[in-house]
């Protein structure tokens, strides 16, 4: 927008009042909870905080969350790029419907999606039954000694939950960039003798790297914080499917506020860090566009 900003027509006291009101509302509503967690964390002596975090269960929960959220974000980066590409470039039956469907994981409450995913892929589910020990695939897995395999009650379940929750981020970050890329550039590269993979890697990819990075970070942040889908799908098995968010919830339920504070702090710092990164990426991206 243009640089000129006008003084409001109403008196300055009015504007000041509104500004004060808005700042107070945001400050109290959003700032106070952060302060509360900060105070609760400061009250813990550093050694105790460290001991709480390095307890086997807490450390494994944090590791699992980080690993699964990264895997889910990577899956969604690859398939999100593919989806965005297909939706922008090709005309095919059901394209509009598919485009609208991409937003569904944001609109659909996590619990609703979770029980549906369980009914589909869980033990005895419409598709999950084939993986059960007496199902064809599960039986085969058992026969080769893979033991009893549960798709949802394993790390696959954690990743599935996070993939569902974060699916729209990369698609919606890349789509607007793809729309602005003119096919003439690719055609020019092709005329100059570039093979399709070269065109993709050297002409197209550099243009949407910032958008991909933004989508990836958003997905990572959301995946780390995911709770509803994870808790219902995976059954929260300690050392196997118990994520950091579920750990916080269980500590809280047992009135172990110190344990909950320690892991909450890690999750909060991670999301604040990613928030700064995402804003930095947006800035970088705007600068690139301005060039």
């Amino acid at each position, binding site marked *: 927008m243009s640089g000129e900003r006008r003084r409001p027509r109403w008196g300055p006291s009015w504007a000041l009042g509104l500004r004060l009101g808005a700042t107070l509302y945001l400050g109290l509503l959003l700032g106070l909870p952060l302060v509360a967690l900060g105070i609760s964390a400061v009250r813990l002596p550093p050694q105790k905080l460290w001991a709480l975090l390095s307890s086997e269960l807490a450390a494994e929960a944090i590791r699992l969350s980080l690993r699964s959220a990264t895997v889910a974000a990577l899956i969604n980066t690859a398939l999100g790029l593919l989806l965005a590409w297909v939706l922008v*470039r090709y005309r095919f039956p059901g394209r509009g419907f598919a485009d609208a469907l991409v937003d569904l994981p944001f609109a659909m409450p996590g619990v609703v999606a979770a029980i549906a995913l369980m009914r589909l892929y869980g033990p005895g589910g419409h598709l999950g039954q084939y993986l059960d020990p007496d199902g064809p695939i599960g039986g085969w897995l058992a026969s080769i000694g893979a033991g009893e395999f549960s798709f949802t009650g394993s790390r696959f379940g954690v990743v599935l939950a996070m993939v569902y929750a974060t699916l729209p981020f990369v698609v919606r970050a890349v789509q607007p960039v793809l729309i602005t890329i003119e096919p003439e550039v690719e055609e020019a590269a092709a005329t100059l003798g570039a093979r399709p993979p070269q065109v993709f890697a050297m002409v197209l990819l550099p243009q949407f790297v910032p958008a991909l990075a933004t989508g990836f970070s958003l997905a990572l942040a959301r995946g780390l914080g995911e709770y509803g889908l994870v808790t219902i799908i995976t059954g929260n098995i300690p050392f196997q499917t118990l994520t950091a968010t579920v750990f916080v919830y269980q500590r809280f339920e047992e009135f172990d506020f110190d344990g909950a504070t320690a892991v909450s702090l890690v999750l909060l710092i991670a999301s604040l860090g990613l928030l700064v990164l995402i804003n930095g990426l947006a800035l970088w991206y705007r600068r690139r566009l301005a060039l």
Partner: protein
Amino acid sequence: MKPRTPSHWIQWLLIAIGMTFLTLVVLLPVITVFGEALAAGLAAYWGSITDPDALHALRLTLLITAIAVPLNTVFGLLVSWLLARHNFRGQALLLALLDLPLSISPIVVGFMMILIFSPEMGLFADAIQRSGLRVVFATPGLAITLLFVTVPFVAREVYPALQEVPREEEEAARCLGASGWRTFWSVTFPHIRPALIYGVILCTARALGEFGAISVVSGKIIGSTNTLTLHVERTYLEYDATAAFACASLLGSVALLSLAVQTLVRMIPGSDSSPPLSG
């Protein structure tokens, strides 16, 4: 650019991969919700929804949504107005703060609310004990939690739209003698209406579907602080699949409806089509 009809088998393969992924992860679950809800027949469906616990959960959910959404709509309009039309220090901070609820884990949000309002451990423990007011494990706590979680949606949608409003039109209205309010309603408001509708829908969908933060703050007291999402979880864990899917289908319908309206709003020319950041 305009989409083209695929001409190469690799292009069809890409489409097939993308659509298979979308079908397995998004489409099949939503079909499952409605299929399972109606699997036991309409009578069972109706019975599950009109169960007293379910009705109470539904009423509570609507109540806290009806508190959070209007408040955050008015406030979101105000904040986006301030951000777009005024220059003041701390503006960048205000914008960053606004993004906060989208990136913090709902569980951490709920736990932070406990740390503020818990009568035993909270920041205001003394005051809360003295006043005898129940905040956590009661309706006020649920409403405040929803306020926190849904604060960004309206402001994030309206702010960019407000920046796009041609200032000349507002100035012309002023020159013709319209008051500040009149200018807002007749000139500015029509420009931001699609964004506002979009923001309110996102805000409502999130409020109805919130689960993680709510499950910490509510204490899950059946018939008292159990919201609809918590009711779905409880019935599901009690192996009452019919009840769980019936109530889930209510929430799912709202999600589908919000998606339909979003798609319609997006088709209105001139409306902001920026992607929603979170759900």
